């Protein structure tokens, strides 16, 4: 796994042994490639696949110091709350969530198989670019 633009990433996939698709690429490979693309965007401090239901990381590519488990749990919880609010407001199924804060941005995109793709970025990140990569990953991975 190659490093993001700066710092030394802590990487890894968790969970069951990787399944292989018809094309031969393992699911874990697909997930990690998606994370690699997202993490190459300047300003991204980490990205991860998270089980939506319980907020546990499935695969991750993080810079040193980023608390993966906390990011995963909080992102899943936030996504759940926002989905509930979206249902209450008649907005329908949520496709992408970004939480902006003074010190950075948390981005979440629901994907197939009850997974979320999550990115944590600093406040100067090109959100449009990260969003593009995340939605592409969410639509393509595990399809």
């Amino acid at each position: 796994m190659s490093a993001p633009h700066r710092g030394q990433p802590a990487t890894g996939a968790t969970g069951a042994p990787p399944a292989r698709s018809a094309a031969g690429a393992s699911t874990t490979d697909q997930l990690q490639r998606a994370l690699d693309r997202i993490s190459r965007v300047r300003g991204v401090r980490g990205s991860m696949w998270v089980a939506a239901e319980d907020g546990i990381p499935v695969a991750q590519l993080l810079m040193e110091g980023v608390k993966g488990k906390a990011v995963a749990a909080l992102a899943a919880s936030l996504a759940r709350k926002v989905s509930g609010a979206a249902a209450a407001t008649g907005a329908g199924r949520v496709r992408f969530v970004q939480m902006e804060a003074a010190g950075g941005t948390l981005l979440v995109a629901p994907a197939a198989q009850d997974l979320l793709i999550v990115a944590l970025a600093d406040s100067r990140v090109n959100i449009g670019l990260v969003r593009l990569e995340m939605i592409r990953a969410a639509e393509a991975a595990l399809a």
Partner: protein
Amino acid sequence: MADDVRSLTAALARDPASLAYADLAEALRRRGQRHEALQVTLQGLVRHPMHADGHDCLARIYADLGDLERARLAWSKALEIAPDHLGSLRGVAFLLFRQGDLAAAEAALRKLLARAPGDEGARRALEVVRAGGAPAAAAPAGAPAAGPGRRVTEPRLLSARRPEVFHGFDGATNDILLLDQRGLVLAGGLTDAEGHDASELAAAALAGVSGEAVRTAEYLGLDAWSAIVAEAEQANLVVAPVGDGALLLVRRDRSMAVGLALRFAERARGIALAWLQGQGA
């Protein structure tokens, strides 16, 4: 509305034993005359202690007054008398939702929908509860009156009078909502696809989002959060904190670019902040 009150008052004067007291109380409640409504209802229930509609009305008044415990007791009494009383089933369900008891709220909503499958507000509330819910903390007993439009019951009923804070904004009364940290509506409004008021339900759900955002920002060392943007299938939502504890929701059509929606929300936020400061909040 004034004519309703006059005619109902006259009807009750002609026949003090009439059940019209409940209609009169409801008319008064909708006008914001909650204490008068309470008097009428309590007097009516002395004559008709087994009148489920009267207990239902009493519960709504207590809910408006922020006395959720008495509201719960009154709805429980109504359901003792008439187990299928739809207004009371709805009231109990939304009360439980508001208090954060999601399991009980889901059970109550299922019960309500079994008897009233067409109740769109209940169906939507059930979706919210199943999605993990986001109830606001219960308003404490004796809390300041929530205003004529703020009820924890029947989100389908449009609130009558809310401050026109966003006058001149596109969607001022149906796409922009200002609420407090307890999930109570302050101004603006939100309607569902059928044009029914969904403000109360949305406000209750959004209060949970605010708390989650604060927690997330703190844990991750992101400092204060400034906005949440949710892109959804039917609309884009922007949620932003306003001042000390208030929250703004702006709903925009999917056709509006997210960046524009954010700018629109920022303008609305400025208006809301100025208004809150003018209220001394």
